[in-house]
């Protein structure tokens, strides 16, 4: 059955290649294996390219090199232990993943989260967005040949990682959001650190823009490159900044507000050019908007508890364990056997830096999830690869792949 799948297969490439070989006087093609260790694929993506000179006739993406069976592992961990697995799925946006997992479990439990925890979650999720966008900016620029941007972007990323470390004790695998609230109360002196960062970050984004936005080499390499129609993107499962750079303002923070995002004032940046340059501008603008959200969260941070009042689900305070028998028992029970979650199923989706990250959680009423399915945004976005790069030049592949901003841990899980 001839269906235009959008994703070219390896078999199609082999057949096309053989057909061209057999045609006397026709154009011959060359099949090139790009990856899985090519530096511009940011991980282990393999692309099979069929080339006519420098033009790409067909391109077949091949994933799975980083599959670690995380969905299977969820079924063997208690709900609270599962949080640590989510960090490792999309390792550039650990807190977004923590958030969607916790929200799914909280929805099944019917748990209300105190305002302080909600605002902290928003603030840290936005810092995660900056963290991810900064890594994207640095590596994307390096791919295209602008080496110095990387150094500037990582300077700010380092500061964000220090903030994460201050809150959670970890730079990357934070696991700071837990079912029922936050893992720890706020650290001493966090306001100053976040404020210093927020104050300086605007001018730092200006710096990146000075290096790139009007840079003739940068615009030459990115403008008009990597076009794919909006219909193709929707049909192939693309979400996030790529859609917004094509003019569709789909952002789950606005469309289906979660975690109190409706209380924050921010815009959803869009462009209509639908090329690599537009995606760059959208992400730069998103960084400015995220900075605004962080500032609002910082200024309006409510007071109160960092955890829901749910004995048996959230761990009791250390002090209480030394004085109250009940707290000690709860602690023992949570740590040794976990807590039971009512039977049901839920699909929670939030806006990660890359697009819609979704967690489909099925509970059978025991202490461990019956099934957790992870809808990684990179997985859907990568399905657009063939449509995006076929017919373009091989040098543009690097720019186009960079503009998709995928994380292979997220696609392969």
């Amino acid at each position, binding site marked *: 059955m001839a269906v235009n799948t959008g994703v070219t297969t390896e078999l199609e490439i082999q057949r096309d290649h053989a057909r061209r070989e057999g045609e006397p006087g026709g154009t011959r093609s060359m099949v090139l294996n790009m990856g899985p260790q090519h530096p511009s694929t940011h991980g282990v993506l393999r692309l099979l390219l069929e080339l006519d000179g420098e033009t790409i006739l067909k391109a077949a993406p091949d994933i799975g090199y980083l599959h670690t069976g995380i969905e299977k592992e969820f*079924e063997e961990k208690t709900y609270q232990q599962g949080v640590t697995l989510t960090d490792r799925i999309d390792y550039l946006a650990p807190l977004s993943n923590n958030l969607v997992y916790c929200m799914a479990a909280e929805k099944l439990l019917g748990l209300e989260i105190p305002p302080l925890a909600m605002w902290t979650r928003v603030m840290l999720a936005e810092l995660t967005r900056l963290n991810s966008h900064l890594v994207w900016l640095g590596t994307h620029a390096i791919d295209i040949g602008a080496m110095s941007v990387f150094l500037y972007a990582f300077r700010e990323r380092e500061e964000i990682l220090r903030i994460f470390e201050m809150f959670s004790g970890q730079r990357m695998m934070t696991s700071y959001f837990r079912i029922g609230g936050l893992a720890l109360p706020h650290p001493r002196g966090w306001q100053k650190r976040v404020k210093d960062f927020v104050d300086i970050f605007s001018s730092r984004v200006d710096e990146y823009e000075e290096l790139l936005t009007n840079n003739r080499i940068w615009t030459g390499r990115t403008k008009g490159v990597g076009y794919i129609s909006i219909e193709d993107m929707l049909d*192939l*499962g693309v979400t996030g900044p790529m859609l917004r750079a094509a003019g569709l303002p789909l952002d789950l923070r606005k469309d289906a507000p979660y975690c109190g995002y409706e209380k924050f004032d921010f815009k959803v940046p869009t462009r209509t050019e639908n090329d690599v340059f537009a995606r760059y501008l959208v992400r730069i603008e998103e960084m400015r908007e995220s900075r605004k959200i962080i500032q609002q969260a910082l200024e309006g941070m409510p007071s109160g508890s960092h955890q829901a009042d749910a004995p048996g689900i959230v761990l009791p305070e250390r002090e209480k364990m030394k004085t109250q028998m009940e707290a000690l028992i709860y602690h023992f029970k949570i740590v040794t056997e976990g807590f039971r979650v009512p039977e049901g199923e839920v*699909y929670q989706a939030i806006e990660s830096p890359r697009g819609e990250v979704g967690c489909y959680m099925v509970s059978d009423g025991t202490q461990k999830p019956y099934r957790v399915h992870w809808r990684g945004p990179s997985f859907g976005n990568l399905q657009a690869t063939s449509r995006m790069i076929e017919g373009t030049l091989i040098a543009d592949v690097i720019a186009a792949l960079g503009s998709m901003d995928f994380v292979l841990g997220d696609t392969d899980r």
Partner: protein
Amino acid sequence: MLPEALQNHAVAAAFSGLATGGKFELAELTVEVAPENIVAAMTLARHELKFERLSTVTVVDRYPTEPRFEIVYHLHSISRKERLRLKARVSGENPEIDSAVPVYRAADWYEREAYDLFGVRFLNHPDLRRIMMPDDWEGHPLRKDYPVTGPRY
């Protein structure tokens, strides 16, 4: 048949001819259809109900009960800001269902993943091969009767 509570739900009612069950729990709508009607249900959702996006396709293994596999589709309507979960159950003996690729191309890799990890075959899929595991892998790791630990794994 739709349960009575769902008869007045606008989206659910559109499936009244196809649905074999359904529920509205935790503010999420689930409609169950027979596996042979899945493409018809998807076409209806996409063209009449304006669910423009397919978010994900996955499987839940209810081993050892029969029908063993629940194929779960999550659809998203951008214009109406609504989500829908479609579900079809297939047996463990012969886990086969029509592919959703003719309706939503996004189903391509999701169905390959479901085939790879659960062994559910999607008929008319353009390229039904393993996607995560190596091509010569034996077994389907996310099945409930597949061990987490063992000599080989």
